[in-house]
């Protein structure tokens, strides 16, 4: 996946107003099969897989004993004894080791990343555009659901998920069909003025939608509670790795929180810039970029909880100079559908 095909801003705005096509095959796919699949998964993740039905997708962190995030992933339930984890590219090997280390008899864990192509079609025109290529009735495919179905005659998994804040779909297909699927989707995308989208716009799109990027906003030193992912922790589902630490942190109250901010001048905050308040260094930026949709410069940072309220004035140190910013509501951008 290139950083950009044409221009990051142009690609970004095209997804917001029309349609974009992404090759995100770098993502990892790990299959978990066998009678004990659910019990292994329940141990590994913080969210509750027991409530899932076939054809459902669940977003969840996978935590360490101390509540740090090993990875954040999408869990697909194909059947009661067959699941797929979609994990971050940089974490595939680490996740496999982690899963194997906690695995038990009666479960098969297989890395399907190399044989799977993943393509995303995102934007308000995605449903009508995709509908021309498939007999699957897309109006009945709800958010965070998936189904097997043909797209342009190619057998795929069609998933109503995405990482842009827009309506859209993601397609899992055998690598041997990847180019054909891309070409078919490209044709219908291009026909209505949509575009292929690179990594640069993928990052600004997800940032505006306040979707965490592993390695930037979350990692093994941050917990889902601190990252604003409390909704992904099913405290009452029974034991899971990290539960004790997260219960304790939840009871004691978190000390810092991942918040959104907006620059109050024209400077651009970037990851790792220091955040100050009244000459005290209070945190560090985890993601920062211009927001093509909002035409201002935005970012995410962990701030002490007492300094994380909306409209709190902060300062970002950029190349040795402090620039004013304020804490704002997230998501920065919400699709109008």
């Amino acid at each position, binding site marked *: 996946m290139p*950083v950009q095909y044409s221009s990051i801003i142009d690609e970004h705005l095209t997804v917001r107003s029309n349609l974009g096509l992404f090759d995100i095959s770098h993502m990892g796919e790990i299959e978990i099969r066998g009678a004990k699949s659910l019990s292994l998964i329940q141990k590994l993740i913080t969210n509750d897989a027991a409530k899932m039905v076939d054809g459902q997708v669940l977003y969840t962190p996978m935590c360490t004993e101390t509540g740090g995030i090993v990875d954040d992933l999408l869990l697909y339930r194909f059947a009661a004894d067959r699941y797929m984890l979609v994990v971050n590219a940089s974490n595939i090997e680490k996740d496999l080791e982690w899963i194997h280390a906690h695995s038990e008899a009666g479960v098969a864990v297989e890395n399907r990343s190399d044989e799977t192509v993943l393509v995303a079609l995102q934007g308000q025109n995605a449903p009508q555009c995709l509908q021309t290529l498939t007999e699957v009735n897309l109006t009945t495919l709800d958010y965070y659901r998936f189904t097997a179905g043909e797209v342009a005659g190619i057998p795929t998994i069609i998933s109503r998920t995405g990482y842009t804040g827009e309506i859209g779909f993601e397609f899992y297909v055998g690598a041997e069909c990847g180019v054909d699927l891309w070409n078919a989707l490209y044709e219908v995308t291009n026909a209505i003025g949509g575009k292929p989208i690179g990594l640069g716009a993928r*990052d*600004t799109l997800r940032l505006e939608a306040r979707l965490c990027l592993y390695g930037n906003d979350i990692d093994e030193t941050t917990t889902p509670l601190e990252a604003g992912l409390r909704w992904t922790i099913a405290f009452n589902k029974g034991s899971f790795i990290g539960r004790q630490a997260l219960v304790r942190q939840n009871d004691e109250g978190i000390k810092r929180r991942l918040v959104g901010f907006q620059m109050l001048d*024209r*400077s*651009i905050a970037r990851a790792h810039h220091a955040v100050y308040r009244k000459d005290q260094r209070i945190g560090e930026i985890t993601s920062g970029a211009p927001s093509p949709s909002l035409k201002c410069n935005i970012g995410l940072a962990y701030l002490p909880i007492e300094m994380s309220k909306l409209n709190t004035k902060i300062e970002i140190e950029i190349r040795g100079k402090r620039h004013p910013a304020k804490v704002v509501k997230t998501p920065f951008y919400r699709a109008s559908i």
Partner: protein
Amino acid sequence: MFPADLKYMKSHEWARREGDIVDVGVSDYAQAEIQDVVYVELPEVGTIIEQHKAFGVIESVKAAFDLYAPVSGAVVEINEGLEDAPELVNEAPYDAGWMIRIRMSDSSELEGLMSASEYQAMIEAEENG
């Protein structure tokens, strides 16, 4: 693409001399590589800058890049239009997208810079390399 009356730096800034005044910007090649210029940070008028030292920053959506001075001297004017319209660097890198005007202190420094044809050859060598 690379006007013959300008001098160029390896770091892709151009210099246009008129007497002891030198205007500075970035080349068409640089703006095309950076794409969507979203912010340009320039020194204040009166700042003394040194040849080959960073005098400012140009930012794309993804990253920030230092701008290097082609000559030493005092900044006598900056392109204030870039504050509201940094995209001028993309649209007209040799004209409306200029960045700073320097009163140079040593005109011999210009001799160490590249001609348009030398600069073009450097880029072709990089692209083929």
